């Protein structure tokens, strides 16, 4: 037993420190094959924690003994490999057992959860209280809700995203120094209990006072602090639903209509998918997906409407009539249903999670390329991507596209899914080649990779002003001066420790 192992056992107990090869291999396998990971590194140890005090102790030890700590909150494999160590001397801090739903508050439309809380766990709890979560498109049931919020993953209802940070509100965090902090109105005055007694609900993410530390923690891939709970913005669960569709041969034909809806703040769920992605969301097996895909238009805009009693029906009637008028004016055919797909199937992908991740249903493997841009620029990026697909001789039939308007329409998430059979080495190699080539060319064209995982980070930080990098490094030096948190990720190289 190493000295480090002994010290960790002192903190969390023997049963929570793992050095067995098979355990380490399990964690390693989560990211080893991911195209974003250049040279996969196996962790030295895995430590399971349940208390914030233990996290503090471990980070203090990391500062003293100079090892790196990578937090993992999801049982689900992260398709972006954000949990892959970038440094040889790394331990994994497994937070999956910190999984308490601390508060669900219908009146204030929020919940407070620990990092290990999964979508499968949280959905029924919030629904019971009449709340809905603001989630990524059909998340995996065993995925951490906290991780998606911290990673600024896109949510499907743009009109509820007032700021890019939504739905994340307040956080409790242990900085790299080992210091505990609470952000936003949760900072105080008063304890959380005292704040709640005064009528607060940790709803204001801003501050305390003249800085917003939650924005530094968010998008940091665990390099600034380890979050022990977050408060999360929820909305009211609709009891009346309606789905509308617009289909098109060309993406461009959907954009003006979509822009109008965004400007009027119409529509709850609002996104565009290509035929392969729509089929993958609706069907469970490769054969069913292939069959359905062939019957769908290349592009579909999905518009979810919702209302609640006592005004739900009136709301839906008003919305549908308005949308019909806009569609008529713009020469758009607004559909109440799509052939071969039931509205019930579509509604199921909202306010729900899946045990069968939709991006793995078609061929078993998927690697995603995603970035932020604006809707009007998406056709240009799609054109570029298609040309690279052609040049790499990858099958264009195995490409998914997902376009998600964000921040009430100010920008959008543009995502390409490269589907492949992971057991076919040749195809896998072609997929990797396409992934690497397309990532670079899209960056060169101005695609803004705002969440630069793995190999994207180095490429992306080369393409931004050095003042940005310098400023980020100054911030890192404040909250994690010895670079113990996810050392080597983003622009925080190992040598800066």
């Amino acid at each position, binding site marked *: 037993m190493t000295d480090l192992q002994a010290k960790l056992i002192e903190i969390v107990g023997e049963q929570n420190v793992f050095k067995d090869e098979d355990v380490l291999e399990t964690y390693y396998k989560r990211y080893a094959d991911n195209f974003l990971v250049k040279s996969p590194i196996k962790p030295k140890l895995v430590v399971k924690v349940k208390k914030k005090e233990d996290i503090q102790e471990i980070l203090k030890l990391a500062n003293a003994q100079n090892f790196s700590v990578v937090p993992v909150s999801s049982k689900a494999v992260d398709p972006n490999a954000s949990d892959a160590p970038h440094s040889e001397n790394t331990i994994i801090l497994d937070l999956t057992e910190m999984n308490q739903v601390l508060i669900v508050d219908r009146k*204030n439309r929020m919940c407070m959860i620990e990092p290990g809380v999964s979508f499968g766990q949280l959905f029924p709890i919030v629904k019971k209280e009449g709340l809905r979560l603001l989630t990524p498109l059909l998340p995996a049931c065993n995925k951490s809700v906290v991780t998606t919020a911290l990673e600024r993953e896109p949510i499907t209802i743009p009109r509820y995203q*007032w700021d*890019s*940070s939504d739905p994340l509100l307040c956080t409790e965090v242990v900085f790299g120094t080992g210091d505990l*902090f609470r952000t936003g109105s949760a*900072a*105080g*005055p*008063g304890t959380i209990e005292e704040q709640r007694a*005064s*009528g*607060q*609900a940790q*709803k*204001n993410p*801003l*501050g*305390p*006072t*003249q*800085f*917003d*530390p939650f*924005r*530094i*923690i*968010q998008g*940091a891939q665990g*390099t600034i602090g380890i979050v022990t709970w977050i408060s999360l*913005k929820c909305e009211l669960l609709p009891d009346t639903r309606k789905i509308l569709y617009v289909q098109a041969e060309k993406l461009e034909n959907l954009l003006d209509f979509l822009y109008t809806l*965004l*400007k009027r*703040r119409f529509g709850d769920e609002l996104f565009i998918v290509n035929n392969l992605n729509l089929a993958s969301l609706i069907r469970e097996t490769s054969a069913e997906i292939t069959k359905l895909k062939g019957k769908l238009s290349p592009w579909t805009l999905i518009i979810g409407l919702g209302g609640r009693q006592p*005004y739900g029906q*009136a*709301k839906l009637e*008003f919305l549908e009539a308005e949308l019909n008028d806009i569609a008529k004016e713009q020469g758009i055919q607004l559909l109440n249903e799509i052939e071969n797909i039931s509205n019930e199937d579509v509604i199921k992908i909202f306010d729900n999670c899946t045990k069968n991740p939709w991006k793995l249903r078609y061929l078993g493997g998927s690697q995603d390329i995603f970035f932020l*841009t604006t*809707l009007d620029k998406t056709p240009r990026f799609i054109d570029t991507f298609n040309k690279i697909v052609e040049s790499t001789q990858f099958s264009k039939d195995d490409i998914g596209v997902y376009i998600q308007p964000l*921040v*009430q*329409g*100010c*920008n959008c998430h543009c995502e390409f899914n490269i589907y492949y059979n992971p057991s076919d080495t040749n195809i896998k190699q072609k997929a990797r080649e396409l992934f690497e080539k397309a990532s670079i060319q899209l*960056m*060169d*064209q*101005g695609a*803004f*990779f705002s969440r630069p995982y793995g190999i994207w980070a180095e490429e*992306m930080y080369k*393409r*931004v*002003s050095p*003042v*940005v990098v310098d*400023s*980020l490094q*100054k911030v890192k030096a404040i909250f994690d001066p010895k670079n113990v948190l996810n050392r080597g990720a*983003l622009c925080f190289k190992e040598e800066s420790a």
Partner: protein
Amino acid sequence: MIKDNEYEALEKIVGSQNISREPVILDTYAFQWCAELLNVINDKPPARYYLRPAAVILPSSTEEIQQIVRVCNKYGLKFKAFSTGLGPWNCVSTPRTIQIDLRRMNKIVKIDTKNQYAVVEPYVSGAQLQAEVMKFGLNCHMPGAGPQVSPLASATSMAGPGFTSASTGFAGRNVLGVEWVLPSGDLLQLGALGQKNDPDWFTGDGPGPSLRGIMRGFVGAKSGLGIFTKVAVKLYPFPSKPEWKISGESPNYKFEIPNYLKFYIINYKDWDALTNALRRFEEEEISFMCYYASRGAICASFANSREEMFSYYSIHTRLKRPLTLMIGAQTEREFEYKKKIVEGLIQETGGKDYTKKIKIRDVSYAEALRCLLGFHGFLITGCFQSTHGGMDTIEMAIRMAKLNAPIKRKFIEKGGIADDQGEGVWLATYERGHMAHCEMPTMYDATKPESVVGWVEYAHACDELDLKEHLGIPFFIEGDKQHEWYGPHCMNYHIWLRKIKEAFDPQNIADPGFYITSKKTS
């Protein structure tokens, strides 16, 4: 104060016509609304002038600002930015500080009508921006301070609550791309603007952590961490038909109310009923504006003179806890739908519609659209400033109003602040009721020392109340003294804030008086 060679180095950058060290010019920057309050807070006489800057300089571009900041670094001068400049926090707070007046940077750089944002320079006012974006059926968030202030200053450096916050949010949450001159003189561009290929304004976050996190918090750094030269702010749909037909002369303008807008004043019998009503109206997502202002404030809001305000006395006595609501629509169908919901909600929440009992002039609609209602707060004494300001839930904001009233009454009895029966409150909802803030506009006489002192003593009691009752952090917790008081009660945040200042501005070149001081100064 400023040496000849220092002055000459600055003059070289902007030309002699754009720099001055004449006392007569400099004092115009020191004369500020509420300066007397800050003087008293800092144990000085209640003068209406704050500190005189060492010089004032008017750059015309980001590059000139970078050069000016580098000169400051070279000679150990400090700088303080000034955009539209409302309030003493625009003043310099230490000697040898130059005022950088940004009025020559007054361009609307871009209006992206599709992606709903505008890029503005510091001296563009809310009114100017609104006038331009409404041509495209769009609107901008404006703070309660009014349409004459800079959206850039509000979004990057100040606070940001507004009368329309229910539908246009909070200034600090409306920020996209940012161009920022750091205290070193380096240019930092946030988000997609910082990338070399096709830089654009549509996001200010990333890659990776968002540097918006150090730019500002609930309130801004007030130039304590550099100068913002351009910002992209989110735009919102204009709430009605974007028409603006106004005639007449001040203050008796006539305004043709555009289709489709409607004001409501709905009276509730007590705080509980009001709390429920605010929540319910916001849950239905129909409002353009939704806030609580005390009955006195309602009477002031719709009056053009003290006499007119007092003529509302009979209404004043009948109003208890009035909710102010405005709805807007693009089509008749939408308007009818929203009116129907309002009628239903009034019944459901036990409110009484007082709209017809109050004479709401057509021009009040223009004032609402243009965020001018706050100006009526000056009607009685000619001056007011708010205390408190914490933001979280509607319930917390209501509790703050309730707890504040007896304290305020005590200070009214003592003399000093004006008598509003302790009820002067503005409580606004944000983002469809997800948040609310509460502040207590408090009238005083800026020309009478005892009144100024009365306001300061009352404000201190408010800050103490917020600490004791856990009502969030007030607006004006800024500067070393206040941070060192509140910090230990709030996770010692002041230690981290100071580290940011020290990392980016160890020598305090950016005036730290309304932010926090680096202790690394050699």
